[in-house]
């Protein structure tokens, strides 16, 4: 019981961290958008635009198709909750101890949210929803093994499977071949997992190019706000993971996160969205790099 109480204390600190990350998440997405706009010679919207959008959706009514079941309203909430739970699992900057799981729990708690979103995509009985769900699970089928390999490579380097243990032992100036390969590969996976160009395009509403947006097409109002907010939080969580566990630069974490957010913007500007069936080649490249990194260590 004693352990349980100390765990609950740690949990509260982790929740505090997650709430701060939640508050910062729209800003990061705003920065990525601003970078893209500037690179495209546009002024672009303010970096706070995402906050205004969430506020706007929050006040709007939700439109629901009569064919849907209770799952339709549940899914965005679960997606939001699981992303927030994943944010709790990041190494804590208040020194709290998240004793409820390691990196595998982190990967699979995100899978819980994905499961609900993909299932609910079929609830509105439209072709778009099913298309989105289908593509989402297809991309996930290739992303997940690569993430597993990235985890493995990191475990070999740091000797721990808990996220805080990994970050504590992560040697920031260790520029080995394995370290650099892992860093590049994780960045590729980060783009795929967060539905960014070149795998998915978050800014489009064209049926041929959408993946994640397709699933959320039937949502509106507060539920849509939850989904967008959770997606932004997920991007921030992955950027943080990338900065703390994979980017071998000796800089403060905040700077590294900003740097990688800018990198996302640059990569999105320089590349086109690739064809859906090329995604497997893209992720296989990341996987092979990681396999090399694993064997090389």
């Amino acid at each position, binding site marked *: 019981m004693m352990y349980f109480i100390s765990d609950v204390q740690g949990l509260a600190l982790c929740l505090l961290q997650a709430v701060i990350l939640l508050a910062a998440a729209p800003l990061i997405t705003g920065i990525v958008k601003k970078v893209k706009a500037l690179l495209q010679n546009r002024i672009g919207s303010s970096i706070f635009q995402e906050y205004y959008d969430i506020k706007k959706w929050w006040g709007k009514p939700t439109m629901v198709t009569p064919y849907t079941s209770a799952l339709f309203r549940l899914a965005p909430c679960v997606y939001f909750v699981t992303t927030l739970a994943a944010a709790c699992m990041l190494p804590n900057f208040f020194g709290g101890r998240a004793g409820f799981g390691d990196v595998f729990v982190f990967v699979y708690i995100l899978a819980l949210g994905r499961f609900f979103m993909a299932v609910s*995509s079929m609830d509105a009985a439209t072709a778009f929803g099913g298309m989105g769900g289908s593509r989402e699970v297809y991309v996930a089928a290739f992303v997940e093994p690569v993430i597993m390999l990235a985890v493995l490579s990191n475990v070999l380097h740091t000797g721990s499977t808990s996220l805080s243990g990994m970050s504590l032992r992560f040697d920031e100036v260790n520029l080995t071949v394995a370290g650099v390969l892992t860093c590049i590969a994780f960045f590729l996976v980060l783009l795929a997992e967060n539905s960014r160009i070149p795998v998915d395009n978050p800014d489009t509403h064209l049926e041929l190019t959408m993946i994640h947006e397709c699933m959320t097409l039937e949502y509106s109002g507060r539920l849509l706000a939850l989904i967008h907010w959770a997606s932004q939080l997920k991007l921030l969580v992955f950027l943080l993971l990338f900065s703390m566990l994979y980017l071998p630069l000796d800089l403060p974490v905040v700077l590294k996160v900003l740097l990688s957010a800018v990198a996302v913007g640059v990569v999105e500007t320089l590349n086109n969205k690739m064809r859906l069936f090329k995604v497997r080649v893209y992720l296989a490249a990341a996987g092979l790099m990681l396999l090399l990194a694993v*064997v090389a260590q």
Partner: protein
Amino acid sequence: MECFLLAAACFGVGILTLLFPHSLQRYAHWLANGAALIGSGITAYKAWTLLAGASVVPLAWGSYSWVCDSWSAVFLLLTGIAGVITSLYALGYAQSYEGSRMRLLGGMWNLFLLSMILVLLAGDAFSFLLFWEIMAVASFMLVNHESEKRSTWTAAYQYLVMTSVGTAAIMIAFLLTGSASSNFSFAAMADNKLDILWQHVVFACAFSGFALKAGLVPLHVWLPNAHPAAPSHVSALMSGVMLKIAFYGFGRFMFSFLPVWNYWWCVIVMVVGAVSAFLGVLYAQMENDIKRILAYSSVENMGVIFAAFGCGMLLKVLAGGSWYYLGFVAALVHAFNHSIMKVLMFMSAGSIMHGTGSKNIELFGGLAKKMPYTALFTFVGSMALAAIPLTNGFTGEWLVLQSFITLISANSAQITRLWAALCFVLLGFTGALALGCFVRLFGISFLGRARSELVEHAHESDKFMLAAMGLSSALVLICGIYPLPVVQAVCAALKLDNEFAVQGFSLAWAGSGSLSVFNPLLLLLLVAVISAAVYLFTNNIFVEQNVTWNCGTYPTERQQYSATGFSKPVRRAFDYLLKPKRQVSYMRKDHAYFGRQLSYKLEIPDMITEKLYQPVQKHFVGISTFLRRMQQGSVRLYVSYVMATMVLVLVWGALYK
């Protein structure tokens, strides 16, 4: 042993209901399934006390002997629990077989359960093989129950032939081991004096025989045919328990008879397991028949179990020390959990078939409104099979991944690391594809709108079936949120002191240097806290109901995504493995662009059947045709054969006196 005798007596009563007259078949049904329920309950209870430290007096009867050690106790527990759940389900489900050999179903059901329990209790090679064969025959009878359908008896005979081949291999393994020991009791066979070469032969025979029964690739081909053909509660028991009994037998050989393991055996077990897991789930996602999906998913999960076991073997061979048990714990925990969730899912499939009369998910849609409880239970089962946290599917997955991480970081030999990393990647694929597979199964069947009028007439199942499904869903969630009892039972079965550091309610593992923790209860607490907060914000949202915007027309049911369409991206991504045969044709006389009548045909032949079994079959038939020339049916020819043989014998005798 008295408890087990009592259980056996219950099953005996159940078998005797076969003798009831036809007019009393309803009573026979209640008595048979009730007896099976009580017998399984007694077995589960006794097995639990065994794992808690009680012991059993061995029983001998002539040359047959029955013993129960901790390795069999954990499987007895699994059989007992699954038996209780499925017998409860059968009380409702088997009623629909009234008038079509209902007494046979009840009697064989009891025989099947009894034979599985006696296989687990067998203390010598002969009783093992005897009950192993009775198990095969009883399950054959059950698979063949609806023998009016051609597909059913083809599947049943395929199963019978394959399982006989498997038994032959197992028999060779037993005979070789027994002939190198003083007698055929398991205790004597444990000190066998097999030399290295024969050990390889015994391993090859035992592994192929048990892998066939467990449905590992490439010996799985009977499984996706036989399991769907059987009545649903039988499929549940076959997938949930019978496959695990094969794992029990393999473990028995490995732990008792072949204690010194070759490096390559371990690699073979691990790689075959991982490949089975991957191919199983890949084919599962391509199927539209709900029971075939579940059957392929069983191939996947048996693959995961064997991969974890192989990983444990490698850890023991290479690392030594106290680390190796993690792979075995993972394999056993996953075997236990999988039996509960697979039983649940087959029962759900049975309910859907009962309610709609079809197994094709392409015809469903919107079933959640007609069968709300079945929908809820199927959702829990789908999450478990997709290894989602807070269900018991994830506990096994977490342990399996931990054991692979331990193997890879414990061993510096790069070739081993590469093998293990490749298996690890395959297991990663398996997890993600399983998620897609069960999203598809649940979403297409239960959500959206009805795709055919079958759904309009669908009805919810009766209270026995719902109670059984509810019970197993509860077990799935309880074992997911509080996994310690299962893990401790498994540690007891492997005769490990509780190696998992128990902190509060978490699983903690300190093998590879630092602590890995999984505390589902705390995770649940966290999720509950955040959910409560989210609920506060979203419960009073203003909802407007309106039909989906469809460019000015009303959307039809046909515009929904189909199950075949849903799995298309994965099918295309793995087309070099699946080799789908696709045929699209359209009526030419219609308008060239609009309103054409299209017909779409898709077939995914099982690669293994086509590449491995069909050539063998072709050669077999070829050789038979050739040999037929000797069998002309003419008496004169046979007399000349006798004559020729006699001359040969005489000459041989004259030459070698």
